[in-house]
């Protein structure tokens, strides 16, 4: 059996573990439906932000006055490399079922993700203390904290999920349920990176460029 028999988007186990591969089809399709409904949540927050960042400035600062593009760029790189590391964790799981290898890649993924959340919290701290830009200052800032905060919460819950999966990999090993959970976490993690593309473009870059 080769990779050509792929049943769903994401890593497919066709060549290495046919049994789990069969079981994965409907589980992963269901998870895609969840991901898309989550995307709807983000889209509505984006729409609110788009309206507020132009018409909801009130007496508060403008986007270009409070955003730090360098920090946004570093955060983008952290999340991108984190997503990339998770891809390699999945390959390690698929082809070698090597616990140590998977755990090391997961650790790298988690550290990069945690650094991302830490930098975002630092951004908030700088904005609130140095730019007088707390969430209650204007509609623009409320929408900004709501959108980026929701994303940061998603990343944080992904980190918790990742820690739980690391324990399961260490204790249970690569049973079919554990593999399927890791595959769903991978999709979740990659999808959060896609949402971040929207945030760094439509929030940070648009805010500074316009």
């Amino acid at each position, binding site marked *: 059996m*080769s*990779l050509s*028999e*792929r*049943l*769903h*988007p*994401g*890593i*497919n186990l066709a*060549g*290495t573990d046919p049994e789990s591969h069969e079981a994965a089809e409907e589980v992963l*399709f269901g998870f*895609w*439906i969840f991901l*898309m409904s989550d*995307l*709807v949540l983000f*889209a*509505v927050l*984006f*729409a*609110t932000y*788009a*309206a507020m960042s*132009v*018409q909801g400035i009130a007496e508060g600062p403008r986007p270009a006055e409070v955003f730090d*593009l360098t920090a946004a*760029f570093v955060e*983008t*790189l952290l999340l*991108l*490399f984190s*997503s*990339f590391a998770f*891809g*390699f964790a999945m*390959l390690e799981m*698929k*082809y*070698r079922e090597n616990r140590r*290898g998977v755990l090391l890649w997961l650790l790298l993924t988690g550290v990069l993700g945690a650094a991302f959340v830490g930098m975002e919290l630092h951004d908030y701290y700088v904005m609130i203390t140095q730019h007088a830009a707390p969430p209650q200052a204007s509609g623009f800032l409320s929408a900004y904290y709501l959108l980026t905060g929701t994303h940061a919460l998603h990343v944080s819950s992904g980190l918790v999920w990742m820690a739980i999966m690391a324990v399961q990999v260490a204790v249970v090993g690569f049973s079919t349920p554990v593999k399927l959970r890791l595959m769903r976490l991978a*999709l979740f993690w*990659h*999808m959060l*990176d*896609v949402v971040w*593309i*929207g945030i*760094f*473009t*439509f929030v940070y*870059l*648009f805010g*500074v*460029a*316009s």
Partner: protein
Amino acid sequence: MSNRIPADMPPSEYEDEGRERRSYVVGLVLALVLTTAAFATVWLDLLSGGAALAALGLLALIQAVVHLRYFLHIDLQRSHRDDLLLILFTVLILLIMVSGTIWILYDQHVRMMP
């Protein structure tokens, strides 16, 4: 990352792994180039006004497709049509909701101006 080939791994699987690994690397490189281009556009003031926003939006769209293709492995294979249709339908709903919200709120804003 060890490069040794396990004794029990058939050659075809090893090739498959090489291909999947390359796919992630290609995705990473493309994403890095697109991200850097987007930030450079703003940092170096390469474009301004509407042209800058259009270019940034286009770069974001391309990067989203790159992530979907190389990290989430979505392509036009027949077995993926269900998932692709799900994604495209969601995108349609998102466009309606986002553009509708922006339009209506903008209209309200204009009417509220003294």
